[in-house]
């Protein structure tokens, strides 16, 4: 039973560029959430996708956008990268809309130079 997978593992970009991160949920899960974890901090909620729609969004600018595909996988897009976007980006999946436990992927480490 495959867990949550994310790609790529590491990514280096320069300011102003755009980046796309990918996530495949755990088998049987249909809800995907994205979190940003800055160095030395706890994860911060970016947004959640269910049935290919954004259900809930945290306090992040519109430069952060996402998408969910029919197979429940998801992408996180960040435009006009800033130095402050350097962080570990975590994807989490769960079943349905209830407060089921969220399971996390290994994350993508994004460095913006």
């Amino acid at each position, binding site marked *: 039973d495959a867990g949550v997978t994310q790609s790529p593992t590491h990514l280096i970009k320069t300011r102003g560029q755009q980046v796309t991160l990918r996530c495949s949920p755990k088998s049987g899960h249909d809800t995907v*959430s994205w*979190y940003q974890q800055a160095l030395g901090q706890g*994860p911060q909620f970016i947004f*959640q996708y269910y049935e290919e729609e954004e259900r809930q969004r945290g306090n992040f600018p519109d430069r952060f956008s996402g998408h969910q595909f029919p197979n429940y996988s998801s992408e996180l897009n960040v435009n006009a990268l800033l130095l402050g976007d350097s962080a570990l980006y*975590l994807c*989490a999946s769960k079943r349905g809309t209830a407060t089921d436990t*969220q399971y*996390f992927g290994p*994350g993508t480490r994004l460095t913006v130079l």
Partner: protein
Amino acid sequence: AQTVTQSQPEMSVQEAETVTLSCTYDTSESDYYLFWYKQPPSRQMILVIRQEAYKQQNATENRFSVNFQKAAKSFSLKISDSQLGDAAMYFCAYVTNFGNEKLTFGTGTRLTIIP
């Protein structure tokens, strides 16, 4: 604002001993769920234990147990018989019901196991 506070940035414990990590939270909701996640150097966030707020009985998972004090909004994690593999960052988190399903995390406690 809904917050989670972990007042111990770092803790250390001798191998085979017991350690308790503290967590307090602030929410106006009555129905919510609490979690402890472990994040080793590999970065993968791993669920350690989960507690439903409506349950009075404290959750246990093998060597891990919690002390849930709802009135005090306290949710501490006790690790018994500490092992070297327990070394990691530990994050306390909660999620409320009724459409607000984002996990709110604390800032974490770094646990070191002394051989």
